[in-house]
């Protein structure tokens, strides 16, 4: 292309033949777009999910322990090399209740570091008692923001052991990267399937261990999920974490043992406490009885005392009466004594008067005597005294002659010589004195004798006086004594009187006291009776307490024993170190992405093939057209390569531009459409990423460019080998040939002339024939696939809910509902005019296993299997055989059978949980499109499970109802406690229909693609056809064919080709449709396998429409053909 002229010619060529150039461009663009676009959908799905995982920081690994995991484990794991972050998580499946709705919830601690929730509405919980709900719960109408949710456990475990609070306010709703799809998995609580998750603050959990630890790996975030590199990288970390398992598990084991024994000890203490309390109560009771007895005793004593007191009182009263009499006597005596005393006193007074007279006489006598004495004394006295002193002194002196001993005996002292002398002198004086009186002695003696006689007389008188006086005194004293005695007696009497009064007082007081005592006694008796009553009560209470607590205690003791046993049996815990491969939605999403990848593997190849063929024909035709020019250039001496370069570059440029366009359009648009369709399932994927993929871009572009260019080379090759002269000679027109049909004259003759020509023409241009058929067939196939996919999905709704599950509504009954409640409800149902027929069934979730494959499904046992056909129509899809539940075994649904790879007669395992599993045989495989079911007759159910099925739902057929009427009916039945939910089949069918809304996009894409394909192929081939037959057509025109007749002449061929193409397309489309449906369908769904007649009609119609449009365009091209062409020489 170094030559300027050639270069210019090249550009001119493009300008002149821009239609051809554009059609080449478009067909390559289509091919590349589909090829790279569909292929890119797989990585784009992965990337979109990965971006979401990265944004929410989805964990890479989680560790679950059979005995839970602890802070120590968290600590240990966080030290493992390669661990980025560690987050302990609590997670418990519980039942939630808003009062209006019940739901099975996975209650989890609000994640912070990883698995971040994207809050869709409201806000995250900030304090205890708040929660964030799964957005799905809001979508399904179970919850609203602001609702208060009460949580409870399904097992015997106390809510308090799990959560501190049981009521939570819904403050927000969000989505978790742990759940990409609508499905939330199964659970042991409630009906068996989870309705959603609930995030509550970590502090709300009461458990002292964590259920799992989530881990992110360092550097894993930068890698793309679902890739081998990522898996290997995370696996390495899993292995490192697993090395911790043994040590940490041993620790945990010890800890649990210790805690367990502590708890047992606590329990034992509690039991002991309880026992002690009972014992105390017993003792107390006994004490009470004793006290009562004592009290009775005392009361008896008191009674006796009181009786004694009464007796004493009576005696005392008698005493008092006696005392009164005595006192009265006393008073009488006193009065008498007083009278006597007065008389005595008078006598004594008289006596005293006589005495005083006597005394006075005496005194006078005495005085006379005294005077007489005094006279005597004047003389006679001194004499006497002297005589005496003389006698004495003489005596003492005389005595001194005696011995001392004798003296002592006489009592006379031993005198000293001096004393003796003194005494002798004294004696001598006395004797001198005495000597004076010697002559008067006789007189003196007479006076004295007289005196003495008087004195004696006086003394006698005095004696008498004295005696009288004494007597008087004595009387006086007596009187006086009598008087004082009377006074005393009076005083005594007064005192006695006083005392009596006192006594009386006291007595009355005593009486009162006694009365008091009596009263008190009766009160005490009353009290005693009460006390007895109380005691009896106490006794009863005690007995009750015993009756009540003894079993509890026994239980507790048993529990403790069990716990001990358990603890002894406790095995060392294990860890499960799980990577993302154990996240259900993660895996499912990956599988779906792979499915798209599988579709991308083959499906776009159709476009490529068509595109390559179209390119080949186009380039061949182009070279043929320019045969003369090639010859001329060769003749001029241009080299083969520079001549070929034009065609090669032409093809290269158009295919390159087309590829670029296709790459952009395909990789930007198609994945969005496809991923959006999958977002019906994976609602949580927030955005679709559609980067350009280098590999797909390069490979598809390279293949496209190479195909086209090689086609150009191949086309040139033959021409370039010829010599210029041959090239400049017109190529001999291809000879007409008889066709096969002519050998069937009976048929050939019947064809009118135009058709004969058409048939010959069709046979003549075989390449065009096959390419057109292929192109039209591809278009038809694409359309069929598009409509067919819709049919297949619609089938779920139409057939599943229109032909298979024909019941109108199901009423789920509370699991706890009693027989009477159920009977009452069923009776109400039977009387309801809106309900035509109804039947009890048993519904439940279970896992079905066969050959190591497990799928979740539902078991359904009808109460009257012979009537099941009125509600659920069981038949085999392929053999059309009606199935019944008679006989052994169970009927399972088709997709389940396919997934488990079981046939009629094979054995399957029905598992409710690890402990409850039974084996049975498959007796039939039923057509079914949504979810998996195991149908079983009540008899078989009983043999399998050993108990008759407990009915928990009623299937009903109803009169046709409007939506509002359905809602009214639903509310009506939900009001009671028996019905937990009413589900209308119409609603389910509606949901399936809603799902279809987004499938329309895929159909549009396919229809547009099909249209483009048809258009490009037909236009291109027609173009070639017309240009090849330009001369012939011009001749026809000259012959006087009208434009319509000319185009009819050409179009007749096209119409026939379109027919043939459409016919081929039916087969191709069915094949492709089946391939896509089977590849793309998810586990719980079975798409319809058939394409509806309507879709065939649409597809054929559209194919013909596209063909007609192309033919219409061709009409104008034909019209433009200049008749002058017919004059030209053959090129």
């Amino acid at each position, binding site marked *: 292309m170094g030559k300027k002229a050639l270069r210019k010619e090249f550009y001119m060529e493009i300008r002149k033949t821009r239609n051809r150039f554009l059609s080449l461009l478009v067909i390559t663009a289509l091919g590349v777009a589909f090829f790279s676009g569909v292929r890119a959908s797989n990585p784009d799905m992965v990337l979109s999910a990965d971006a979401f995982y990265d944004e929410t920081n989805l964990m890479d690994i989680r560790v679950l322990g059979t005995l839970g995991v602890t802070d120590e484990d968290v600590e240990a794991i966080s030290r493992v090399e390669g661990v980025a972050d560690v987050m302990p998580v609590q997670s418990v499946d519980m039942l939630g209740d808003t009062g209006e709705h019940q739901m099975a919830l996975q209650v989890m601690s609000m994640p912070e570091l990883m698995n971040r929730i994207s809050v869709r509405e409201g806000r995250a919980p900030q304090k205890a008692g708040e929660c964030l709900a799964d957005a799905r719960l809001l979508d399904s109408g179970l919850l609203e923001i602001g609702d208060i949710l009460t949580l409870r456990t399904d097992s015997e475990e106390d809510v308090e052991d799990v959560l501190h609070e049981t009521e939570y306010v819904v403050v927000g709703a969000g989505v978790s990267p742990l759940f990409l799809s609508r499905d939330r998995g199964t659970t042991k609580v409630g009906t068996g399937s989870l309705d959603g998750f609930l995030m509550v603050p970590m502090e709300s959990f009461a458990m002292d261990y964590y259920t799992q630890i989530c881990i992110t790996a360092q550097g894993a975030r930068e890698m793309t999920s679902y890739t081998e590199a990522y898996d290997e990288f995370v696996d390495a970390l899993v292995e490192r974490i697993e090395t911790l398992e043994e040590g940490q598990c041993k620790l945990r084991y010890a800890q649990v043992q210790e805690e367990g024994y502590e708890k047992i000890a606590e329990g034992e203490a509690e039991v002991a406490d309880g026992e002690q309390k009972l014992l105390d109560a017993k003792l107390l009771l006994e004490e009470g009885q004793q006290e009562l007895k004592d009290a009775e005793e005392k009361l008896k004593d008191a009674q006796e005392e009181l009786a004694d007191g009464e007796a004493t009182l009576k005696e005392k009263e008698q005493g008092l009466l006696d005392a009164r009499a005595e006192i009265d006597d006393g008073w009488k005596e006193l009065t008498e004594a007083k009278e006597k005393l007065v008389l005595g006193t008078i006598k004594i007074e008289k006596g005293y008067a006589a005495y005083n007279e006597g005394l006075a006489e005496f005194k006078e006598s005495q005085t006379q005597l005294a005077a007489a004495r005094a006279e005597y004394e004047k003389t006679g006295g001194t004499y006497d005294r002297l005589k005496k002193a003389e006698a004495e002194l003489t005596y003492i002196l005389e005595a001194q002659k005696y011995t001392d001993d004798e003296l002592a005996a006489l009592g006379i002292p031993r005198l000293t010589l001096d004393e003796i002398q003194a005494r002798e002198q004294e004696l001598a004086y006395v004797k001198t004195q005495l000597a004076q009186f010697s002559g008067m002695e006789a007189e003196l003696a007479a006076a004295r004798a007289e005196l003495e006689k008087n004195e004696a007389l006086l003394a006698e008188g005095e004696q008498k006086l004295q005696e009288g006086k004494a007597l008087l005194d004595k009387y006086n004293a007596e009187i006086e004594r009598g008087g004082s005695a009377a006074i005393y007696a009076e005083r005594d009497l007064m005192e006695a009187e006083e005392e009596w009064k006192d006594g009386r007082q006291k007595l009355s007081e005593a009486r009162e006291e006694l009365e008091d005592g009596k009263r008190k006694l009766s009160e005490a008796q009353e009290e005693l009776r009460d006390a007895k009553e109380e005691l009896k009560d106490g006794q009863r209470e005690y007995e009750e307490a015993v009756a009540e607590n003894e079993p509890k205690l026994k239980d507790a003791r048993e529990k403790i024993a069990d716990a001990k046993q358990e603890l002894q049996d406790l095995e060392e815990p294990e860890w499960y170190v799980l990577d993302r491969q154990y996240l259900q939605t993660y895996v499912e999403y990956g599988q779906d992405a792979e499915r798209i990848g599988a579709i991308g593997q083959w499906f776009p190849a159709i476009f490529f093939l068509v595109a390559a063929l179209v390119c080949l024909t186009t380039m061949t035709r182009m070279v043929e057209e320019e045969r003369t020019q090639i010859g001329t250039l060769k003749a001029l001496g241009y080299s083969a390569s520079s001549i070929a370069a034009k065609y090669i570059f032409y093809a290269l440029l158009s295919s390159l531009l087309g590829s670029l366009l296709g790459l952009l359009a395909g990789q930007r648009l198609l994945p969005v459409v496809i991923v959006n369709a999958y977002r019906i399932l994976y609602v949580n994927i927030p955005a679709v990423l559609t980067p350009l993929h280098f590999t797909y871009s390069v490979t598809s572009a390279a293949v496209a460019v190479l195909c086209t260019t090689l086609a150009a080379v191949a086309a040139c090759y033959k021409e370039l080998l010829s010599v210029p002269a041959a090239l400049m000679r017109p190529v*001999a*027109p*291809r*000879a*007409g*040939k008889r066709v096969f049909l002519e050998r069937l004259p009976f048929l050939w003759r019947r064809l009118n*002339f*135009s058709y*004969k*020509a058409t048939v*010959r*023409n069709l046979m*003549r241009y075989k390449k065009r024939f096959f390419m057109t058929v292929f192109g039209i067939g591809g278009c038809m196939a694409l359309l069929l696939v598009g409509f067919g996919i819709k049919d297949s999905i619609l089938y779920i709704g139409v057939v599943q809910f229109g032909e298979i599950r024909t019941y109108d509504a199901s009423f789920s009954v509370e699991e706890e509902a009693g027989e009477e409640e159920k009977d009452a409800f069923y009776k109400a149902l039977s009387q309801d005019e809106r309900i035509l027929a109804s039947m009890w069934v048993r519904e439940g979730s279970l896992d079905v296993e066969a050959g190591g494959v497990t799928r979740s499904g539902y078991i359904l046992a009808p109460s009257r299997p012979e009537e099941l056909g009125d509600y659920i129509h069981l038949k085999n899809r392929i053999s059309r055989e009606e199935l019944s539940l008679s006989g052994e075994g169970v009927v399972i649904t088709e997709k389940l059978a396919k997934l488990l790879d079981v046939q009629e007669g094979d054995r399957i395992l029905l598992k409710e949980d690890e402990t409850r599993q039974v084996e049975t045989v498959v007796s039939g495989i039923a057509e079914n499109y949504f979810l998996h079911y195991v149908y079983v007759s009540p008899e078989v159910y009983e043999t399998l499970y050993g108990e008759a099925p407990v009915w928990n739902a009623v299937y009903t057929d109803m009169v046709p109802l409007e939506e509002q009427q359905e809602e009214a009916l639903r509310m009506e039945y939900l009001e009671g406690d028996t019905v937990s939910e009413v589900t209308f089949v119409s609603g389910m069918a509606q949901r399936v229909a809603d799902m279809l809304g987004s499938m329309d996009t895929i159909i549009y894409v396919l229809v547009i693609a099909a249209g483009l394909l048809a258009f490009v192929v037909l236009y291109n081939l027609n173009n070639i056809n017309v240009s090849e037959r330009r*001369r*012939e057509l*011009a*001749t*026809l*025109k*000259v*012959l*006087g*064919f*009208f*434009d319509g*007749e000319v185009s009819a002449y050409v179009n007749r061929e096209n119409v026939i080709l379109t027919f043939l193409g459409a016919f081929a397309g039916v087969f191709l489309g069915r094949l492709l449709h089946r391939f896509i449906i089977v590849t793309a369908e998810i586990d719980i769904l079975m798409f319809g396998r058939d394409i509806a007649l309507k879709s065939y009609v649409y597809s054929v119609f559209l194919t013909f429409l596209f063909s007609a449009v192309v033919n219409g365009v061709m009409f104008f091209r034909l019209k433009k053909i200049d*008749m*002058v062409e*017919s*004059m*030209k*020489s*053959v090129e």
Partner: protein
Amino acid sequence: MAGFVVLKGVKKIYKMGEVTIPAVDGVDFEIQKGEFVVIVGPSGAGKTTVLNILGGMDTCTEGMVLVDKEDISSYRGKRLTAYRRDEIGFVFQFYNLVQNLTALENVELALQICRDPLDAGDVLREVGLGGRMDNFPAQLSGGEQQRVAIARALAKNPKLLLCDEPTGALDYNTGKAILKLLQDTCREKGMTVIVITHNSAIAPMADRVIQIKNGRVSKMTQNECPESVENIEW
């Protein structure tokens, strides 16, 4: 008497942007019914354009074209096509047979659109191809192909038989035979035949010779006694 074919002041002017190129620049002639007319002129003189206008394949820019008293210069589109199919038979230099149809079928191709056709077999026999009716064009020689083409044109029973260099692609003898066939047809059927050629040597066989140069009729001569083809050498 007005001619069967009358051209008056016929001009065909092509406009190529600013430039106007007159291909035919005022042609006038008349032809009587049943005449054998040869239009001669050098290449590019405009004779083919005249033929095209006359055959209803092109329209003139100016002037009047009367064929059997009908002014076809005003015809456009369908009417023109109808004129072609009913009034005109056309013989091309390169025969323009449909390769995919047998000789008979090629004739029939023309007949099926015609109002009053002749029998295809008869016509083919008349042109001397009675035994080769079921042959495809590729199985026929050039002369035979041209005979088929002539048969195709004649079978329509046209008013005018227009031949564009009918011998141009044929060898001398075959060309002569074809010209003879045309002349005989003219004489025997009273068909008006107009042959365009650059070979002025055949002019003596025509009843009327029209010479065209530079888009105009330079000379028109009438041969009172035209030569038979056999007697013409070139």
